[in-house]
């Protein structure tokens, strides 16, 4: 059974997963101040063996999966995803990852900033030529409206305070 094609396939897949994880962790660990290499075995070993045993049973028995096996398979997948989640969380918690993400964002801003500005200017000119309001104009109008509304709200607050003082009550407005 150890040498059966299905078992060989399982062993090969298992090796690939472990090598892939190691490569990923090496990549995250590159650069100055890199975190010490994490041991994926601590995540994978406890249930990989269990999952592989279930998988081998499915492949070698040659019968349709029973509901028990389906439940076990689902549990295996849940644990596999949870393991991946922990590995990724550890990798993303490193300084190297944060720096890499920061550099990528900066690159995006450096590229998109001028492009966005140029596109906006072009659109403004085109819309102006067509006699249509631009996004900037509509936004400015909305901003004016919001400011007017804010002024009205402020006046309302002041009026509430004055009325409360006139009524001699510790004003509703003064309470808040």
């Amino acid at each position, binding site marked *: 059974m150890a040498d059966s094609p299905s078992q060989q396939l399982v062993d090969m897949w298992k090796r690939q997963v472990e090598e892939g994880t190691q490569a990923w962790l090496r990549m995250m660990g590159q650069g100055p101040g890199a975190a010490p290499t994490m041991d994926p075995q601590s995540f994978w070993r406890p249930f990989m063996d269990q999952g592989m045993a279930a998988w081998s049973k499915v492949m070698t028995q040659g019968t349709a999966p029973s*509901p028990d096996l389906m439940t076990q398979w689902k549990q295996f997948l849940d644990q596999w*995803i949870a393991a991946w989640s922990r590995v990724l969380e550890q990798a*993303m918690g490193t300084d190297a990852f*944060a720096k890499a993400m*920061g550099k990528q964002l900066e690159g995006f801003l450096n590229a998109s900033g001028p492009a966005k500005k140029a596109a906006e200017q072009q659109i403004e000119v085109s819309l102006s030529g067509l006699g249509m309001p631009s996004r900037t104009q509509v936004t400015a109008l*909305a901003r004016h409206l919001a400011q007017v509304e*804010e002024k009205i709200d402020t006046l309302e607050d002041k009026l509430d305070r004055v009325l409360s003082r006139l009524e001699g009550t510790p004003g509703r407005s003064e*309470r*808040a």
Partner: protein
Amino acid sequence: MKDELFTMMGELPAMSPEVMARMKEEANRNLLRMKHFSEMVMNPTEPKVGPTPRQEIYRTNKSRLWRYESRRTIRTPLLFVPNLGISRPYIFDLMPKGSFIEYMTQQGFDFYLVDWGVFGEEDNGLTVEAAVTKILPRLARKALESSGASEMSVLGYCMGAPLSASFVTTHPEFPLKNFINMAGPIDFAHVGLFGKWLAPDVFDVDKYVDTLGSIPADMVKMGFKLLKPTMDVSTNLNLWWNLWNPEYVSGFNALNKWANEYLPFPGEFFRQWVRDFYQQNKLIKGELVMGGRRVDLREIRCPVLAVGAKEDNIAPPGCVKPLIDAVSTRDKEYVELPGGHISLIAGRGASVHCWPKVASWLAARS
């Protein structure tokens, strides 16, 4: 003849009745899975969210104050302050029997919700300070007026907790009865991955805001998805596994709708939020100033409850709990409940662990 036809098959193994019954059940479930999947794909229906009846009490710019229908048997009303931007507030009133607001109103609380609204480009000048010193005091005042009560409890969820804490400490005239922090970060030194990614040496918030203006919803979504990259895989796996269950499917549809509706951040709000809270951690240090007044958490002298979620990776328990040591009241309690950031307040687990705890704690002090 029969033997000639079936000579290729060996003897079928004998199966116990239990195994047969379970295989039959699994086969039925597979049929239901296919049926529900085809309905989801061919005939998608918009899930109905926000079932609890409510009334708009006040509106200012994009923000609204909602009052929910309730028997109002508990004297002190409750003002719920959620996060500004990021996501829609109907997660707190997602569906019948799956709604924190419905539960609280059934317990008799006079429930007010601050709905910050969806901010546009014209609101890019809105700062954290404006939200804390103008919008929130106004909505809180209107809630108090509407209820006719002399005091009010405040519950801040997620970002709403530091915002409402900043409000109550800089407005001592507000008659605060009780304060609850639910999954709200207070000490940003222990805020997890976001703290790492937004650190000043790797994230230039000024350049970000000056270039983009506002933070688009897609970028907000990307940031939260990155916190848990395997979430979509496990969600879809669980969906497939439970697709036979119509209740699960309707719950999934509602939650999925919410989970895909992200909101943008006003630019200046994002700048101040990242700089003052994440990067400089001013709140817990007592260095935060709002409207010319220092935010001093020791000014909170009313009963305080802080609720952390064990598996929260947005506001880990380590950043929620410090509120307890920072306030000067003696009636204070910290609880750590099962769940993540969202499942703390929304979902089956929330109805078992969180809601009864919050309701009983608050009712005893209202």
